[in-house]
């Protein structure tokens, strides 16, 4: 069979507690994914959700999640050996060029897919400024993992309440990095996180003529381009196939980016 988009049940190999709210689930399965892509995870009679891939080591992959709704709460109740349906990888990945200086702009749980990108990029000779933003210290995700990536990755932290790192949004750090002309020229900025934050990253990069790629997500049902639920205005392209990872130019052509999105019935809501 050439195509098969039917979930395959895979046992959880390992569960890691990242912070008080987030667990990482490890699956022993060869996905052949690229950073920025996602998988659909399925728990029978609960739900199936698109989840970004936090790491793909070839023989195993990781997904990190906060227990926020019925699906992620059910995931958090699972034990090693419990089965979860997996299909994918889906979506257009991030792209990078060898040997460049990259900036990761991670808001909240956006740190996970950008960690995945960073692991790949430094193997290709890139250097990375990894900017993590979170509500407070206890919400920070992946900072210890990022610190272990070695000298080619520099960690920057911002928290809304100032409990660690810079007080305020992580985009303040991006502005400083761009303004500082001493280091190597920034090749590309990558954004993954809440959309208002990504819009800010998009605006800053556009104004300072720095390349950027943004992960633009919309409510998804199938994840592979059939249901049409994740189409964006005005071009009508699907964030699950033509996205989620798009150039800043494409993101800025999406009139709803940073402004509104549609729910599972197709009704519009403002951010």
């Amino acid at each position, binding site marked *: 069979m050439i195509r098969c988009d039917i979930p395959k049940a895979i046992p959880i190999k390992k569960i890691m507690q990242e912070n008080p709210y987030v667990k990482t689930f490890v699956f022993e399965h060869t996905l052949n994914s690229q950073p920025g892509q996602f998988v659909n995870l399925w728990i029978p*009679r609960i739900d199936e959700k698109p989840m970004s891939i936090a790491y793909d080591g070839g023989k195993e992959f990781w997904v990190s999640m906060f227990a926020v709704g019925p699906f992620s709460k059910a995931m958090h109740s699972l034990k090693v050996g419990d089965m979860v349906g997996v299909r994918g990888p889906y979506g257009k990945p991030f792209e990078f060029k060898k040997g460049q200086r990259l900036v990761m702009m991670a808001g909240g749980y956006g740190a996970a897919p950008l960690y995945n990108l960073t692991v790949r990029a430094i193997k290709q000779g890139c250097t990375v400024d990894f900017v993590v933003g979170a509500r407070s210290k206890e919400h920070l995700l992946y900072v210890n993992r990022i610190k272990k990536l070695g000298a080619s990755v520099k960690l920057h932290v911002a928290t809304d309440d100032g409990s660690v790192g810079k007080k305020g949004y992580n985009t303040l750090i991006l502005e400083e990095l761009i303004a500082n002309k001493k280091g190597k020229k920034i090749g590309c900025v990558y954004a993954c996180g809440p959309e208002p934050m990504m819009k800010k990253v998009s605006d800053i990069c556009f104004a300072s003529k720095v390349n950027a790629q943004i992960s633009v997500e919309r409510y998804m049902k199938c994840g592979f381009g059939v249901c049409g639920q994740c189409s964006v205005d005005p071009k009508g392209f699907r964030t699950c196939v033509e996205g989620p990872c798009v150039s800043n130019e494409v993101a800025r052509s999406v009139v709803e980016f940073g402004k509104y999105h549609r729910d*599972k019935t197709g009704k519009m809501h403002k951010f």
Partner: protein
Amino acid sequence: MQLNVEFCGVKFRNPLVLASGVLGVTGASLKFVVENGAGGVTTKSIWREGHTGHPNPVIIANDHFMLNAVGLPDAGIEKAHIEIGEYMKGKPAPLIANIVEARIADFAEVAEKVSALHPDIIEVNISCPNVEDEFGKPFACSTHDAAAVTRAVRAKTKLPIVIKLSPNVLNIAEIARAVVDAGADGICAINTVGPGLLIDLETREPILANKVGGVSGPAIKPLSLKAVYDIHKALPKVPIIGTGGVITGEDALEMIMVGATLVGVGTAVYYRGVDCFQKINDEMMEWGKKRGIKNLDELRGVAHAGAYSKKFQNYS
């Protein structure tokens, strides 16, 4: 070979229309499909007041078939106003507005409200097989119910009406005749087949959240061809949108040869990408060009006459 056709008085650049249910949630998405070669587009089913649809997973597929139980999600006539309005700005191709409801009186109301948005054609969905738990047996399974819905819609709109029929009956041609007698201008055949069911071995559970889902894709092409063949045979003057398992230009030509005027394309988006419309058109053109065919009128319904086998009648 010219691909343009006329259906219920509406001119289409080519016979391929996006089938209802695939993409088409927004005006922009419908335009995206036209940019990829569709001759016309059908909206997702529009409800009077909206409907949530089923939980995930809603679509599963492999090389042979797709099972879907998306469950007709929609935000109602207000959303249709916005999205159809958006599509109508510089309308790139004819629009078929697909409507659905659970009660006959509500069909009449949604038909009236959707007509005010000026689509070219109204398609009436009385045949979705994946909402039976909510609404019972589809109207398309009985000549009486199918005709009653048609009459109710006919009374409220002057636009051409197409009734979308179910293959899950033994007498599709009789049902087609009943809806035409009740005032339908055309037939769309077929909706998805079944419903069907798939099980995950490891968890021992049905995979679709709704458990069952309508079957589409390559596996159903023989069923859709047979349905269109039967309807065209019974009602040769009634225009048909032939839908079901059309993935290639060859599939589309077969559909036209059994009697379809327009050809619905939906699941092919999964198999060949959103530009499947352009690919299918190119394949039809290439086939026709090699054989000196001038237009699709030369091919429509030809499978019924048996022109080729007549050459050999003296040998039987």
